[in-house]
């Protein structure tokens, strides 16, 4: 299902003030490890923010003190971020479709913008939702930095004189 290996996992309480730190971590990983352009990193931050906001709300609605868990998976050609909650789940395909953006009715939509936003920002979006919780998988394509010095540096650190 997942193409990469897990690098970072971050678990935060289901409270609004922790969404910022999830954005920070994902952006830091994307900046340091990938050759994603700055605007694509902004896209990923926004998508992560939307998914975390929904995950927090799902946990709270279920009356759970469970954390929201963000994990990052890296493969040569992509970065995947998974946002997981323990809420009651939902049926993504059943979400109501918004009126056309030119429709004046648009104004009545203060909510329901999150998932459409995520969909237009990331390269791939998958949901795994059960009554025990939801995982939102978001993929950004883009290879790692050309000069991969990691192995060398690790060696020189371990052997430092």
């Amino acid at each position, binding site marked *: 299902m997942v193409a990469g290996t897990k690098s970072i996992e971050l678990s935060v309480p289901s409270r*609004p*003030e922790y*969404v*910022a730190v999830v*954005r920070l971590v994902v952006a830091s990983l994307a900046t340091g490890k990938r050759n994603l352009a700055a*605007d694509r990193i*902004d896209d990923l*931050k*926004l998508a992560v*923010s*939307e998914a975390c*906001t929904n995950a*927090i709300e799902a946990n709270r609605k279920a009356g759970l003190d469970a954390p929201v868990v963000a994990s990052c998976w890296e493969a040569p050609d992509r970065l995947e971020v998974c946002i997981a909650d323990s809420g009651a789940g939902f049926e993504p395909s059943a979400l109501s479709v*918004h009126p*056309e*953006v*030119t429709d004046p009715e*648009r*104004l*009545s*939509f*203060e*909510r329901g*913008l*999150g998932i*459409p*936003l995520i969909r*237009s*920002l990331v390269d791939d979006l998958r949901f795994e939702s059960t009554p025990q919780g939801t995982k939102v998988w978001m993929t950004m394509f883009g290879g790692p930095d050309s000069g991969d010095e990691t192995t060398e540096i690790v060696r020189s650190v371990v052997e430092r004189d």
Partner: protein
Amino acid sequence: MELGLNVDTSNPTYTVIVVRGELDVYSAPKLREALIELVSEGHRKLIADLEAVEFLDSTGLGVLVGGLKRLRSNDGDLALVCTQPRVLKVFDITGLTSVFRISSTLEDAMAG
């Protein structure tokens, strides 16, 4: 991480609310309360200056849309000042560019 809000009532017609920082699920409620208060105080022509907004997601958008609705139903308006591509992009994708009056400068917003 902190949201900064500054209200400028020096113009007789337009009340300007300058928003700084990240507008997300944590901070958006503060903006909503500020907008509600301004409306209840009788302000009708509002301009939200978003030039110093570093991050905006759909919760922040929702508060702006809510403010716009509240003002329009009171014969008022909420105009925006924004030139930042990453913020404009969020309005674009969600189709809200056509709902809000978005200007490049405060002067333009007041002229409109």
